[in-house]
Structures are given as C-alpha cells and as structure tokens.
C-alpha cells in the first residue's frame, strides 16, 4: 500500500464556513488538492469561493464523490463530526481540531472499531501532505515542501515543519508527511504510519518525531527493530520538560516518572534508530542514517 493521498483524493471540508476552515481549504485548493465540498449544518446550499456547502456529510459524499474529510469542527461537536464522516463512508478523516475531550475520543474509537476501512488521522494534528501528488489535507504551509523520498511522521505540528524545512534544504524532499497529533487518544499511531512508509515505494527514508508522554515511541521502536529495513532518524521533544506538567499537548506529560524523553531516546537507540540530540540536527541525522 502506498501513500494515503493520491490525485484521486477528493476532499470534503467539515467546518468550511469557519475562519480556519476556509483559510486552509482554499490554501489546499491553491496547492492542487481537489476540494469538492464543505459541510456546515444549517448552511447547506451556500458556497465558499465556489466550493459547495452541504448540511450533512452524507449529502456531500452523494453529490460530489468525496472520499476524504478535513475536519475543523469546534471541540464540543468534533467527535460527532468524525463519526458523521465515518458513517457517510469517508475512508480518510483528518481531524485538525484541538481540545476534544478524551472521553469523546474513546467513543469515536469504539464507533470506528465497527468500520475497519475508515482511517482517522489526529485529532489535534497538522494533517497529511503528499507533495508529488500536490495533495494537502491540513494546515501545513505548502511552500516549504518538495516532492522527494523522506516520509515524516510526528506528534507535533510545527516541529514537523522544522523537519520538512531541513529535508527540503538538504535536497531530499518528502514523500508523505503525517501529523498524528498531540492527544493521548488518537486515530492513527506511529506504527500505522511506519507500516505505510515501509510499503510505500516513494519513501526511501523516514523521520519519526516523538515527544514526552505515553509509550507510543517505545512501541514504535520495537516495531522498527522487528520490521523495518529503511533508514530511520528520530527526535524526541521535551528533554527539559518538568514532570507532572502538561506541555501544551494534552498527551505531553510525564506522569508517575513514565513517558520521559530519556526512556524514549534509549528505546529508539536500542532499536538501531539514530536519534538527533538537537531539533536543528534532524536532517543531518537522517543523512547519517541513509549513509548507514
């Protein structure tokens, strides 16, 4: 299986009529993405710069053939919006919204368990971009990306841009970049992305950016060691973060002495992954990993 995005990707933007929804829907369209519809309950029949707005995702899918959703719905209604998209048969749902209650995400995960063909990316993430296909579902600035061979996966938005900027500067470019989001319960995890990168012919090397909290990096490290031959470089944010404090992301917290950057770096290094000591050295570290 290759990248989750292709020139066939047709996007419905949930929350298109909001400020951020509109800004990033249009930026995505300018980049080359097929933005075919918007959904805002109560605003069906209107349009945003030529993009038709529907009252329900079901209608939008029936009328336009949308097969992916980009979601900007405000936190109290966001879980509902994700489930609506899944129920309408949208196969790829990218949830940008930050601040969804954990219990709502637990409900979403249970709802998605019955729909194994639906992939949710996020929430609280920058989205996904594939420069070679000119498809961008997210809030990342398009101009820093170049088509190329590095697959990037990260829990953080802006830190992903940092890695993108560095790989662009080194002339490596990116195959697909995925932000999986900073929440403790999310749709797509590191291993899902690593599996995709493993199978993706466009991806020749991988950058994985983690941060404090939870054990997703440790689980990814074990998977990499057992399954992945492509070179991997990593960076873990939060080495200077104090324990017991949530560092912005709902999921970025060292609790009960668990989830420290030190543990994660050690697990990755033990799995043969090169880990950059400084966020400015992510690109250089990847070059080293590629050279072997």
């Amino acid at each position: 299986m290759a990248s989750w995005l292709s020139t066939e990707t047709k996007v419905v933007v949930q929350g298109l009529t909001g400020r951020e929804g509109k800004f990033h829907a249009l930026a995505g369209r300018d980049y080359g993405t097929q933005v075919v519809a918007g959904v805002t309950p109560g605003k069906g029949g209107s349009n945003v710069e030529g993009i038709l707005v529907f009252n329900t995702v079901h209608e939008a899918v029936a009328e336009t053939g949308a097969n992916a959703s980009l979601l900007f719905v405000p936190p109290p209604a966001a879980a509902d919006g994700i489930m609506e998209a899944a129920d309408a048969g949208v196969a790829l749902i990218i949830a940008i919204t930050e601040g969804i209650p954990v219990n709502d995400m637990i409900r979403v995960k249970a709802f998605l368990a019955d729909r194994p063909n639906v992939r949710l990316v996020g929430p609280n993430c920058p989205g996904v971009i594939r420069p070679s296909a000119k498809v961008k579902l997210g809030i990342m600035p398009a101009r820093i990306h170049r088509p190329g061979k590095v697959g990037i996966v990260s829990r953080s938005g802006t830190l992903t841009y940092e890695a993108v900027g560095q790989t662009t500067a080194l002339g490596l470019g990116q195959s697909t970049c995925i932000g999986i989001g900073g929440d403790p319960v999310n749709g797509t995890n590191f291993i899902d992305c690593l599996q995709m990168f493993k199978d993706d012919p466009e991806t020749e090397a991988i950058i994985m950016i983690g941060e404090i909290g939870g054990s997703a990096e440790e689980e990814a490290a074990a998977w990499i060691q057992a399954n992945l031959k492509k070179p991997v470089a990593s960076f873990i944010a939060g080495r200077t973060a104090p324990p017991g404090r949530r560092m912005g992301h709902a999921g970025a917290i060292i609790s009960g002495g668990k989830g420290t950057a030190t543990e994660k770096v050690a697990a990755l290094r033990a799995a043969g992954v090169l880990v950059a000591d400084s966020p400015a050295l992510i690109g250089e570290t990847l070059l080293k990993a590629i050279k072997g």
Partner: protein
Amino acid sequence: MKVHEYQAKEILRRYGVPTPTGRVTDSPEEARQIAKDLGGRAVVKAQIHAGGRGKGGGVKLAKSPDEAFEAAKAIIGMQLVTHQTGPEGRKVKKVLVEAAADIAQELYLGITLDRAIGKPVLMASKFGGMEIEEVAHRDPTAILKEPFDAIAGLQPFQARKVAYALGLTGETHKKAVPFLLALAKAYVETDCSLAEINPLMITGSGDVVALDAKMNFDDNALFRHLDIKEYRDLDEEDPLEVEASKFNLNYIKLDGNVGCMVNGAGLAMSTMDIIQYAGGSPANFLDVGGGANEEQVRNAMRIILSDPNVKGVLINIFGGIMRCDIIASGVVKAVKEIGCTIPVVVRLEGTNVEEGKAILRDSGLAVIPADGMKDAAEKIIAAVAKGGN
C-alpha cells in the same frame, strides 16, 4: 484541572462513595466546633493541590476539640512543604476536619487512562497509604490493573474480581463492590483524568471508606461540567500561568532566564531543549497556539517579560495556522508598549513569513533576526551573556 480533597469528596459522595463525615474551614474556632460536632476526636487536614501532606506535617490527629483548634491554628497559614510542592512549599488556606476513623487496613485505588489501549484502567493495591509510585517501582506485581470499557462502564464482575484480589471477603467484599462501581462511574461521568483513593480504608467493623481522594479533570471537557469548573482555585496556580490562561495561552513557568514564545507545543518544547543544548536555560514554556491573534501575542510578550528572571526572549515561529504577520505585529505592539530593554531574537518561518519580517524591519525596533532554530538559540544566548548583569 486539579481540585482539593474536600471538593473531590463532595463529588464522590454524590456518586455514593462513602467518605468520613467532616467539613472544611479556614478558621481554627470553627475547626473546634466541627470537632465537637463530630464527637471530639478528629483529623485536621491541610487542603492544598499537592500530595504528601501527611509526611509534611499537614495532617494531624486531634483527640479533643481543643486539640483540633490547635492543629488548625498550626496548619492554616503554614507554608506546607511536601515532595510535590518544591522547597518553597504551598500556603495552606483551609483545613478539612473529619471524624477520626478506626483504621484496620489501608489499601490503594486509582483510575486513569491507559493510553496504550485507549481505555480507563482501575488500579488497586493492598499497599495503600504510601507512595504508590514507590510500590510500583519496588514490585510492579503489587499493583493490580483492570482496564474497563468507558462506554459500558466498569462491570460488577470486574469489581468483584478486584475486591477478591485485594483480599476482601464477606461483608467487606459486598461493600467494596458498589464502592468500586461508584468510583468508576464518577470517573467517567465527570471526565476525570485521574481519580485516586489513597488510602482506601477498611474500618475495624468492615466498612469501606475513602479516607483521601484526589481527582484531576480533563480540561477539554470542563465546558460540560460547569459545577466542577467552579472548584478551580487560582491561589494554587502560578500567578503568571493564571494570567496566561485568561488569554488562552499555554504558559508554564520554569527556572531559567531565556523567555520563549513559540507556536505549537512540540516546537515550544524543542525550543526549550535547544536553548539548553546551546548552553542556556529556558525561563518558560509558551505555546501561543494555532490561531493566536495579535492581542494574544501582545499579552504573551507582556507575560514573558513580567518574569523578573528573564534576561532575553527567543521568539520562534514556524507558521502553519499561525501567520507570521500576526505574530510580528503583536510583538511590535507589546515591545513598544512595555518598552522592553532586553534582547529579543526572532525567528520566523512559514505562512506569511515575508509580511512578518517586513513588519519587524519597518518597526524600527532592535529585534535580532535569526535563520533557523540553532542560529536563534545561539544568538539569544550570546546576547544574554553580553547583557550579562
């Protein structure tokens, strides 16, 4: 969000979790009266948002109303230092005066999210009353873990299993099961991120009672728990953090001297990391967030500069949702308003970067531009060292 023990117990009682009888007060006189109402013997407990109160001298047994008065007088107003407060301690404003219980056994119960499986997990141990982290460290098998489905809730068979594993039998077992079910219900329905009963007391007569209670709530879910939101105690939080939260800014105060303003939590954390890597030390974590406006940026700058330790500021923006021009005009306004005299290094990249750089250039302010994070970190550390007073 954290709440006090007495508030957590109020919430738990609504769900049918038994707690000792008692009342909260800020007056030693009233503490004496409460103890009298309770029959004389009472426990006086400091109410602060930090654990380890007992070891720090914040929990005292009183054998008479007069002793309760003395205990309350000693505790109210004290600067209570525990392993969680840091050396400066926390000022105690209120005490909870509770009936002194006849303790036969102290157990541990906790519920939190198990992130690896995306489900709440009930943790239980026979070794209550102590640091549960210590217990976990010494013997991980001493803590029993029972994950449960948040939608279906903890099931009675699970509660029975846990109660048996805690060694509870007969009438005590029969009382422990509804206790566990009520605790799990409270956890889910109030959107907790942590509910901890340590110690869970078994009395001499076999009753099951929550002697202590700690509840943390999912900040993102507080919009549907306005009653719980009312429990927020701003005195327990850092004043600069409280100020920042008014503007929806994510600010955490640290001990260093390089203030940071960054967009995005991951980049904010790694900006702290790179400052340290370059030989400096960060004064704060500050994520201005995804869609920050000029007003928020202006306040962010003001809050960073009001920390007296700050000797220089590093602004690191990689715009996605956040637009560089908004950051730039907010910074310019704040610096003009406050008359900032310490060095400010700005690194801008991403959406509307050229507009942002132009605003900074045309402002006439002496901000130092930087290319990339490494350059930014090195420049601010050099500038702070040069300013070095």
